[in-house]
């Protein structure tokens, strides 16, 4: 299991691509299948590889567009 995961609230994403360009492991991509309510292809998590480093959160200009999760032992 990956150490982390990131979730994009796709309606809040403006498709600027900063999280994609800054993710050190390249685990985020544009969701070209989706056009959100603002008319952008939002970013989305590829589904694996996240280390919960938080870089995507800290480069994302939208307050609520990205949430980063960390794996904790139950």
């Amino acid at each position, binding site marked *: 299991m990956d150490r*982390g*995961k990131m979730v994009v609230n796709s*309606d*809040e994403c*403006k*498709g*600027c*691509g*900063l999280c*994609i*360009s*800054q993710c*050190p492991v390249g685990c985020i991509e544009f969701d070209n299948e989706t056009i959100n*309510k*603002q008319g*952008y292809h939002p970013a989305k998590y590829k589904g694996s590889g996240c280390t*919960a*480093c*938080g*870089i995507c*959160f*800290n*480069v*994302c*200009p*939208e*307050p*609520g*567009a*990205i*949430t*980063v*999760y*960390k*794996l*904790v*032992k*139950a």
Partner: protein
Amino acid sequence: MYEPILSKPKSFFETYKEKTGDQTITHYCPGCGHGIVHKYVASALDELNLTDRAIFVSPVGCSVFGYYYFNTGNLQAAHGRAPAVATGSKRVNPDSIVISYQGDGDLAAIGTAEIIHAANRGELITVIFINNAIYGMTGGQMAPTTLVGQKTTTTPRGRDPHNEGYPVKMCELISQLNAPIYVERVALNNAANRAKAKRAIKKALKLQSERKGFTFVEVLSQCPTGWKVDAPDALKWIEEKMIPYYPVKVFKDTSNEAEPYPEAKEIISGEKVFEILGIKRDEKKEETIKYEIPEKYKNPRIKIAGFGGQGVLLLGVALAQVGMMEGYNVTWIPSYGPEMRGGTANCSVNISDSLIGSPVVEKPTILVAMNKPSMEKFEKDMVSGGILFYNTAMIDTEPQRDDIIKVPVPATKIASDLGNIRVGNMVMLGAIIEKTKLLPLETVKSGFEYFISRKNLIPLNEKAVEAGMNYIKENNL
């Protein structure tokens, strides 16, 4: 199991109810640095538990709507004036955490005076300065921080230092001042610098909460729209163009040595205010006139004139003060403005048993001329039957009028004989009250404490008044 470690900070509103249009997203362009810095501010307020005490001052610029987002007290300021607004707010809310959030046009152009002086006063506020080298809101014009050669809509051929000067380095300027305790420039170009930016903002707010002093964080931030590049390339532009000119570093940090500011003083109110104002409050009804001025000199309209330094204004104040103490209505107006030309000072004094209309004495019933120009200027204005006191120590000519009473007094000479040439005015006061019985000596004496500010000089002034009285008596004037 996954737990959220980074999510929308609580210091933001859940939905942006003040905003028009979509209330779940910001008004900023895609990739804009403002949203990132907003997030750092909100995170810091969350982590420091300062949200409820925070007052966010929104500027004019792209962040004009900062108040849409922060679940704090919010003030929206005029262009460039955020540090002044923050000053006013913090001074009357000393326990609050005040953030002046400004762009480069706001802070480094139109608001240069406000930022420099708020910093110099060491206001207990935190200034977050977004430097993106362009005017975003108005559509991409030159900013004071626009780089040399950078094309904007108002530098279409690139910024030319011979026409527009050089980009302003604010951290360098602010850090030269004594008062600021923490000045750092950070950048949003890469993860390491963003982490530093986040820490800097948190540190600044923490220092403010500890009442340590003025804190200033400049953020080199991207404006993909204004720069006409996509967001990821904008980060490179910060790195390649901005950072070489605007070094990213701590310019000043004296926070460890800085002593916290003293707590704000308690506001005093109630009857104590009268005490502070030196007012002895009594509810007694209107005081009536205690001393009858002889009919001949009733309701005098007095002009006193001389060189500046002869104490003519003070002589007027003395007459007004004593007149008031005797229950009369009084006015005193100093000459100032055009009348001061030619080196003479003068004042108008009215002492009246009824309401005083015009306080300006155009036709004196009593003229005191302490020097020659004054006599030349005002003698002709006197009413017929008026009384002229003139300082013969300084006036070697005789008055011209035949229809006035003339009282020559060598006031300056008498004062000089008393050992202080400056009390000529009080010699004249003595002469006036002896000759006219305008006011009683006893009240003059008890009035000294109101119009002689240096208490140790009161005995000398008293002597001077008596010398003036004696001169009138001895010379049967």
